[in-house]
């Protein structure tokens, strides 16, 4: 913090990637994620005007006001961010978008849009800041709360949790990861890969609500996450024009046969160092199996769960012009209208 101010390739300091001060609770997991977004954007030399920040409604969805102050943003409606992102990116498909949602915003009211935006493969980073509760409305169970969770005002949760990673995969997402807001290194690596991905990239990040759901035993609490997180792999991103600033991880430390290299469309490589499991995120069958096991055994597995060579994105399918639609300023000619009118006579 007290270091000399470092500038990135755009000549910006990290502070230039900040925005208004957070109004979330001190210690809220969402704040760490905002910080990771700032860090990643700085590291990746992102030109902020080429990025959109989008969100729904919730504590999580407030957070885009607290990062990337030079990016256009839209704090939309509860559960409806995906449709708004879709439209915004159709208006200008040359932009990137980072969207933030909550588990209530995505898993409850937003379930339909979540599934369908993935199906359309709208190219953006979809972050779910998952805390198992409705923070902003003061601590009701969300649809990702584990069965048996007890909360102060709302008693015991009797419903089985929704697994948003599994949901994303079966909806056709080509980049799906789970992480933990306390695991900054992993969050940042995944973020960087997700931004490079050409398609909907889903990041389900367990992000504790320190005010309403932070008991040691709660599956979405900070202590639980620290204690139980099992990363499937260590992740290192090797971008064609980018060297990761965290010099702690070195490519060489990964031994042969111990890594999986996932090459992305834009030349970025995601290097996964196997840890506990012999897990290849490029197999849907393995993904189903490992998630089924995680669910059954209540394991908190993190990492890049599923990756697939991306399908065409929605703007591609629609054969959208290279120039952003927003900047097209013409109408068909008068001749064309006259011809059509003749056909009606």
């Amino acid at each position, binding site marked *: 913090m007290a270091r000399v101010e470092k500038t990135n390739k755009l000549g910006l300091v990290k502070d230039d990637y900040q925005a208004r001060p957070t109004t979330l609770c001190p210690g809220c997991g969402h704040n760490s994620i905002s910080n990771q977004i700032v860090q990643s954007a700085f590291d990746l030399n992102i030109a902020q005007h080429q990025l959109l920040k989008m969100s729904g409604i919730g504590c999580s969805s407030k957070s885009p006001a607290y990062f990337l102050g030079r990016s256009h943003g839209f704090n939309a409606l509860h559960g409806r961010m*995906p449709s708004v992102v879709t439209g*915004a990116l*159709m208006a200008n498909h040359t932009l990137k978008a980072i969207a933030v949602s909550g588990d209530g915003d995505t898993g409850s009211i937003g379930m339909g849009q979540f599934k369908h935006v993935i199906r359309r493969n709208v190219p953006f980073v979809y972050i779910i800041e998952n805390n198992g509760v409705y923070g902003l409305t003061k601590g009701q169970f969300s649809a990702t709360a584990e069965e048996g969770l007890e909360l102060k005002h709302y008693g015991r949760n009797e419903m089985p949790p929704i697994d948003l990673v599994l949901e994303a995969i079966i909806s056709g997402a080509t980049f799906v990861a789970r992480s933990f807001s306390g695991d900054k290194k992993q969050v940042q690596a995944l973020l960087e890969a997700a931004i490079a991905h050409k398609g909907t990239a889903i990041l389900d990040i367990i992000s504790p609500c320190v005010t309403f759901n932070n008991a040691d035993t709660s599956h979405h609490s900070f202590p639980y996450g620290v204690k139980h997180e099992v990363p499937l792999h260590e992740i290192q991103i090797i971008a064609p024009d980018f060297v990761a600033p965290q010099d702690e991880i070195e490519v060489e430390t990964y031994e042969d046969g111990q890594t999986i290299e996932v090459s992305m469309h834009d030349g970025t490589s995601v290097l996964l160092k196997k840890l506990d499991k012999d897990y290849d995120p490029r197999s849907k069958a393995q993904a189903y199996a490992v998630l089924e096991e995680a669910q059954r055994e209540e394991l908190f597995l993190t990492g890049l769960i599923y990756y697939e060579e991306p399908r065409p994105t929605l703007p591609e399918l*629609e054969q959208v012009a*290279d120039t952003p*639609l927003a900047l097209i300023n013409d109408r068909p000619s008068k001749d064309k209208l*006259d011809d*059509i009118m003749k056909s*009606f*006579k």
Partner: protein
Amino acid sequence: MAVNLPLEQESATDSKPIVNDFAFSVATQNGSGSQTSNAVLVRSLFNMGIPVNGKNLFPSNIKGLPTWYTIRASKDGYVARRFTTEIVVAYNQDTVTEDIKNTPPGGVVIYRDDLKTPPERDDITYYPVPVRKLMKEANVARAFKARVENMTYVGVCAQLFDMDMDVVYQSLLDQFGGKEKPAQMNMDVIRLAYDWAAENLIKSDPFRFETMNGTAGKILITGNEAAALGSVFGGVHFVAWYPITPSTSVVDDIHKYRHLRKDDDGNYTLAIVQAEDELAAAGMIIGAGFGGARSMTATSGPGLSLMSEFVGLAYFAEIPCVFWDITRMGPSTGMPTRTSQGDLLFIHYLGHGDSHHIVLLPASPEEAFEFAWRSLDIAEEMQTPVFVMSDLDLGMNNWMADPFEYPSEPLKRGKVLDAESLTKFIKNHGKWGRYMDVDNDGVGYRTLPGTDHPNAAYFARGTGHNEMAVYSERSEDWLANMNRLRLKMETAKQHLPQNIEDYDANKSIGLISFGTNEPAMVEARDWLKNNGIESNYLRVRALPLSKDVFDFINKHKTIYVIENNFDGQLDQIIHMECKDNLTHVKSLTLGDGLPMTARWIVESIEEQETK
């Protein structure tokens, strides 16, 4: 136009020939192919130069339920729905009894001879058609027989009422997009029936057609296709939608003309996305509007209800986008295939909290086209959602129209700052804020995502905000914003289509109406005049109401507000917005699911005036 009253209330039993001034009702089954035969009838009359309308009264069903098609020919150019139809084509067993019962005295029934019909009436003329026999003779492949059966009544009608067979063939060709093979197959059946009728039927009714010159230069088109064309020629970039009757063909037709929106690389400058529901469709066009695209959707009542929350967001975050409501009969799912003007009040104030929306009210294909491109301009100029409320009658029926005029001006994109003009703005005003009102017209300057300027970004939101677009819970900020929005709506009035007024200071009765009641209004005024009741007329073409409406009201002793919904919603809006003494304003409403008739207007006003 010469005043020549329709014969609705007279009986047609005298033998004086009635030429080019009567109506048909064709009763068939949904999905039986009668759409084509009816279209051929309409187009043939049109091509004979006879002013005509055709209205489809169809069930919410794909195949098998009763459907009626009414065709009116009017040498005087009246194209409103006719209350009575002199010629009844009864081709459906399920409705034949009622169809015959509804035939006016002096009328004609043309029916399939294999239908079980009720005992014969002696005040109407019957013409049985031996459909099976004719189809047996017809040179048509088995697979197609059922589909072309209905052509038999076309042939019979052509014979009985003197239609030009060349014109009929030409109309068939048009109908099949110039493809001769199917046209010929159908023509064979028509010819067969025509010849059979010539030999076997004794003409004993007074109705006939005669070529005239009443449609020269005109086109026949549905309002939905006009809306689609207007949108494409209005430079729409992005359409998101969810299918719902009767709005579906708006987007289908935009698809049809999408090829007009290709750039030099052959890529499209217009994208169309079928959303998973109306909430998503609304969200998408709002996102696109925020992103700087001209965006629109088309829906109907249930979809509109679902869009309420998003419309409130667009209003409050000031996002340009266009919503077409092709109204059908509500409340609720209601009657999806019946027309209505019942969403007016709901649209105008759509959303919780204090909100108001611009609504354009087209009355014809010409206006559907014009309002389509203008709505995109208005939305961007006013930075607000704009609604266009058409209806099933305009949207799905073929209307006679003048060829559309090419938009007179280039696209109006409203107040958008690019990097350069933003720099200038900041120089002039010290700073830029998305909702600063430097022009005192309530409209701020916006920037688009992607603008390469360190100060270009802002955070759009549905929450309370100050002029810098920063979240605020301060009462002053809230009120300042609401006052600016009110001013903006005032400004908007200058950008909306002007109402159309026919005023003469000597008349004390004023009629106010809107939308597709227009043809019935025109006809009814002539009729009333003939009956000694003269009236002025103002047709509202946009909400919020402008001052001329209130002036018009104040200049009359009696005002009738005439509309096709149950509650008299325009009348309600007039009362809400005009706080003058309105005791002389009377509401006449219908709302039975059918297009309005002149007769209903005339009767309603006469009842009031003779009270």
